[in-house]
């Protein structure tokens, strides 16, 4: 089998640039997606069904349509509408965050609903408002339960970030495609990118496990 490591070595600077951008996309989208997801999850759980409806529609739309299509619509539709031209960084982070938020919202909702009703009752019986009870009693416990599911979502997000290569965002997958196009050899670029994604997701997994252990001993 001829596997040309020399070609990968030639292309290493681009893989490095791409990897850094992939990390950037992933970290930014994980942070924004989680914050947004928490808010949407809270919105979904509002007792007033009419107020909760838009949040449910949001989750349905973003979970029910392909991320690839969302990326295209945001890149070619929404972003030019707001800033007058396309911008891969804004489009990429926006699409990944908005998509991830829908999943985080559901994880969050499941985490809260898995808690015993008695926790909320105990907090309320002590005179806490609904918001105080959520803030000090419910969310901290739900968050702990959410970590495995959130970790899974983060890993999916890192891999999904490769989809922004379709709008020519110069991240890891983009350079993998570009290298394939330059040398007309598929395995070197694709296995290299796969290997780098694997390392990124393993690091993410490692960090989450560490966090999980720390929270468990608290």
């Amino acid at each position, binding site marked *: 089998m001829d596997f040309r490591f020399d070609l990968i070595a030639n292309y290493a600077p681009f893989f490095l640039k791409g990897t850094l951008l992939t990390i950037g996309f992933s970290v930014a989208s994980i942070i924004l997606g989680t914050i947004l997801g928490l808010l949407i999850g809270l919105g979904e759980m509002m007792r007033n069904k009419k107020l909760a409806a838009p949040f449910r529609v949001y989750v349905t739309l973003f979970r029910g349509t392909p991320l690839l299509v969302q990326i295209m619509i945001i890149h070619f539709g929404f972003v030019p509408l707001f800033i007058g031209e396309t911008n891969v960084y804004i489009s990429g982070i926006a699409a990944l965050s908005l998509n991830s938020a829908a999943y985080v919202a559901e994880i969050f909702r499941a985490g809260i609903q898995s808690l015993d009703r008695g*926790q909320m009752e105990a907090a309320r019986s002590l005179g806490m408002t609904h918001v105080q009870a959520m803030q000090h009693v419910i969310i901290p416990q739900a968050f702990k339960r959410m970590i495995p599911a959130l970790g899974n979502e983060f890993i999916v997000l890192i891999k999904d970030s490769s989809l922004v290569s379709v709008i020519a965002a110069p991240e890891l997958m983009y350079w993998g495609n570009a290298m394939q196009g330059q040398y007309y050899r598929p395995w070197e670029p694709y296995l290299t990118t796969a290997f780098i994604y694997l390392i990124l997701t393993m690091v993410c997994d490692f960090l989450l496990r560490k966090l999980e252990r720390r929270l468990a001993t608290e």
Partner: protein
Amino acid sequence: MIRVENLKKSFGDHEVLKDITVSIAEKEVVVVIGPSGSGKSTFLRCLNRLEEITSGHVYINGMDIADPKVNINKIREDVGMVFQLFNLFPHKSVLENIMLAPMKVKKVSKEVAEEKALRLLEKVGLKDKANVYPESLSGGQKQRVAIARALAMEPKVMLFDEPTSALDPEMVGEVLEVMKELAQEGMTMVVVTHEMGFAREVGDRVLFMDGGYIVEENKPELLFGNPQHERTKAFLSKVL
């Protein structure tokens, strides 16, 4: 202190409380007994509106908590509650469990809250457990912490919802002991329980509930010694 007028509570089509009227005086210890499904727990939970009130009035210190405009959080500060399953906050230490509400609701400083929490732990005999997490406590210890947590808000009334039902028999005594002490200090208490001995010894008055009504109420020695109603007699013959 507490006045309940024509209280009704339904879950969907099922009417659990059918017209309850009762008054509870300051410093009075009222024990509520009755068969399961009689509505006694629901009645207790209506007293701090953990259950929405379907119709009727519940006055706590003259404020009608059935009125949706009333600030229920303010009233709950004066009404402590102890649950059958303790409902301690598992992510907080024993001390933090007790300090949380005074700090967040009453905006008491950390130092004051901590000092008070330690005093309450001493009172329930658990000062050495201040820094452990609830999961390492026995059931009886958990329930005593839960009582201390409720007391930290300096309530005027304490509601107990079957506080010993989830405990192993050898732990029932330590919890009842704390409750007895509280009664002797003059706390107004409403206790739903199956502990007839406690009702007899500590209660000022016993309510017997069945089928969503208060069937009979009297001083414990009279209710237990000379029940008037057939259903009371039938119930007591089974539990005594």
